[in-house]
């Protein structure tokens, strides 16, 4: 029996289909778990929180779902070392739940992904670059040093905001897992689509088992998502952002 991954569906989640599809294409044994089946969560070995607008982004994106009973199980699992990946709205929930950067208590957030500098939703193609040593986290262990992943940013609240004290802690504690970069891999503030502090695209907790990323690698994850750039290859094969999911699945299988 392999290790099982739960893809959580909150009321308002909207990216469960592509998240599930890519986990499976990367060899993961994954299934959707709806909010009315929260009590089945402890039986899973890892959790993925997909994108969407859980509980309508009321108060602040991620604030209400962080208190959904499903998160009791995720927090407990994370504290016991299970791997957790949050994407976009899932990332916002992990921050609101205090799991990432994890420099405070559970459900006492020390940082947030909040309103873009433009105050507007933005959907644009980006590149996210690995800013930690791959071995720092079992989730990124199979990626190359400085790996560059194409992805789509699609969010209204993706700007990292925290006090100076906590931003320093994020930098010093190697919590800054991914930064926005240009297509050629150079890091440049102009490549950040939302005004995020530190150019942050992804944050990791201290223990390295919980990763929160704002862009969607799972939406640029098969060759057909970019027929232009991947001419002549098998259009149905995973590519682009898929290596991060593959690395996550490998980490889960080792765990």
């Amino acid at each position: 029996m392999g290790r099982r991954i739960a893809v959580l569906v909150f009321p308002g989640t909207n990216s469960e289909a592509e998240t599930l599809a890519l986990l499976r294409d990367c060899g993961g044994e994954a299934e959707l778990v709806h909010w009315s089946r929260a009590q089945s969560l402890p039986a899973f070995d890892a959790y993925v929180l997909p994108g969407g607008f859980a509980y309508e982004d009321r108060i602040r994106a991620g604030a209400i779902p962080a208190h959904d009973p499903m998160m009791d199980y995720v927090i407990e699992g994370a504290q016991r070392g299970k791997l957790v990946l949050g994407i976009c709205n899932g990332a916002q929930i992990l921050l609101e739940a205090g799991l990432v950067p994890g420099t405070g208590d559970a459900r006492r957030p020390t940082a947030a992904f909040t309103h873009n500098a433009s105050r507007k939703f933005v959907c644009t193609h980006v590149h996210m670059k690995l800013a930690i040593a791959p071995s720092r986290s079992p989730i990124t262990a199979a990626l190359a040093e400085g790996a560059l992943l194409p992805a789509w940013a699609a969010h209204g609240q993706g700007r990292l905001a925290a006090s100076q004290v906590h931003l320093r802690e994020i930098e010093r504690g190697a919590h800054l897992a991914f930064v926005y970069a240009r297509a050629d891999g150079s890091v440049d503030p102009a490549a950040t689509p939302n005004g995020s502090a530190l150019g942050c695209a992804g944050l990791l907790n201290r223990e390295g088992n919980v990763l929160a990323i704002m862009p969607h690698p799972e939406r640029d994850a098969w060759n057909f998502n970019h027929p232009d750039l991947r001419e002549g290859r098998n259009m149905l094969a995973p590519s682009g952002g898929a290596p991060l999911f593959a690395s996550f699945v490998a980490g889960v299988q080792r765990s």
Partner: protein
Amino acid sequence: MPKSLALRDDELRSIAERLGREPSQTELHAFDAQWSEHCSYKSSRHLLKALPTKGAAVVLGPGEDSGILHLGEWNGERYGIVIAHESHNHPSQVVPFEGAATGIGGIVRDIVCMGAEVIAVADPLRFGRVDDPLSHQRYVAQGVVDGISAYGNAIGVPNIAGDVYFDERFDDNCLVNVVAIGLVKESEIIHSFAPPNADGWDIVLVGKATDASGFGGASFSSVTLDAADEDANKGAVQVPDPFLKNVLMRASYRVFEMLRERGITVGFKDLGAGGIMGCSAEICSSGGFGAEIQLRSVNVALEGLPPEVIAVGETQERLLWVLPPELTPEVLRIYNEEYTLPQIARNARAAAIGTVTARQQYVLRDGERIVMDVPIEFLTGSIRDELPYERLEAAPPPPGRAFETGVQLDELLERVLAHHDVCSREPLYRRYDGVVRGRTVLARGEADAGVIAPVPGAPFAMALSVDGNPRMSKLDPHLAAQHAVYEAVRNVVAVGARPIGLTDCLNFGNPRKIDHYSELVAAIDGLGIASRAFATPFVSGNVSLYNESKNGNAIPASPIVACVGAVDDVAQIVTLPLKRAGSVLYLLGTPQRALGGSVLIDVLGGSEPGLPSIDYDEALAHHELLLRAAKAGLLRSAHDISDGGLAVALCEMAFGTLGRGRAAIGVQLDDPFQWTHGGVGDIEALFGEAGGHVVEVAGADVEAFEALADGVTGVHEIGVTIDRPVVAIGPQAFDLHWLHGIWSQSLAQVYV
């Protein structure tokens, strides 16, 4: 409830006559909704009958909530594309955010109720002048985009196509059309009528608690807008709830799964115009039944709503099932317990509210009291208005001389690229999630049509484009309607997709004015001509009339057409950006001495007679050539020629190479005289909008491409791609970054 009726005196008389008594308050409001143009198509249905609706790919033509086209087969399953096309013009003019949001909300239900998953939406928009930051139209243009963004993003459906035009004649009436696309296995289509064995079945209402919003919405959209009625108009607009819709859609998909397992045929329909009454009457009467509804069983948001409000109010986010009674408890369980609707929105739920009856009456009860009791076919049967019209004169022909202007080429390019109908649409579409669901192949801005590969593991894909040019339709609605079809088809062909079907939304003025009605008649005739010529039938559509304000300012005739294309293999898709230097550029198209309706004439401030004509035989031959070349892998890029002409098309193909982490590619266009041979002037060759495509062919493939093109007229070698960031026209070279700056900044000032 401050709401007046739109029913006319003669209609009121015929109701009283048929019932043999004065109608009740509820009946009055029911007929008011059901006999509005919005529901009954009374002045357009007989005209629309002339449109071709049959073809090899048609699975379901017009008549239900959506049409269905066959896309492809995979693992022994046939997959259909479900398509619907709607307008939300009046509401969006009054309250832009809610109007545009509920436009998406409504059309998504038209797709869901066919048993389909919603996989894409598209938005054709028409606004008035937006230059003044304090104008109502600026507010409308921003609010509409915000509304589309807020709703579409939250429900998780990618926005993959659309267009936008700006013209002063939309100042008092913006147009907000929306197209939605679904995917369904053809063996699992659910119809919007009660099945033949449905006598005694349950009528189950699901969704948001009924409130007083959207009361009078159907008739509101079927009268001219009067600024003095602003408050009453606002009350007629519905309130969107994308959060509830997100859950409602997913819960409905779960019900589809359950129905598949049990193999039961049921009826499912969206609540739109006319609310509970309109939906339940139509789903039952189209199955040959009557209905009896208990209004007290409806879950309401507040107590004390009058029966007519519960019956015809247009509260959003509701759908209606016709179910065998033994299935009802399981459906209620899925919505109310598994998907916890009552916890998602106050008093939202699924509830049985009535019964399908063999007796052909439509009966509404409010407790013991009967508030409506009418023959169902009288309520829903097609009423028809015969209105007078005249055959429109064709626009005067183009002049027989080459167009001359003293303005220099750099200034022409600058003004055309900055024109609001030409410049980059990114400031709008970057606000829409174009990639949710992960199946997007080409998002907006990447090509002429949006492309989705909807079935995991299957190589086929669906392309979508929506078009309709108001500058042309101001001059000649008959020819402009043909151009709308031609452009939509052309855009789909440009990505290497075979056009398989069309939908239309006919946005016009007041049909009771002979000149407006004559435009409608002429446009429908034009749509039929082009649809037949391209062998692309219409499978669904919508009519939006009375787009006129009380001061008489009416919109230009606006037939807007969507085209669906099929791609057998995503590997054959062609995109817009130039790929490499050293390729040969071909024009597939014949420039004409006809600049009427062009952007060029608009920026020069004059007027010019004569729209370009369409040579259907040549266009078909070009499309065939392009598709065969794409299939053979001979095309590096392709782009259609429309607003701004060839010059703009070439600029856009070069713009597509910027910001991709590699060197930009430019264009060297031969002096137009070399390939027009003086048939038209240089200005017409560069800025004419007669249609056609530009394609990029690798030097090594030129021979194979020309062999395919052998015998095809109107194929011109016009230049090459170069490794310098310029667009050069003959001896004059223009800096690509300068051109791109003009093109990309123009609308960014409106959508900051």
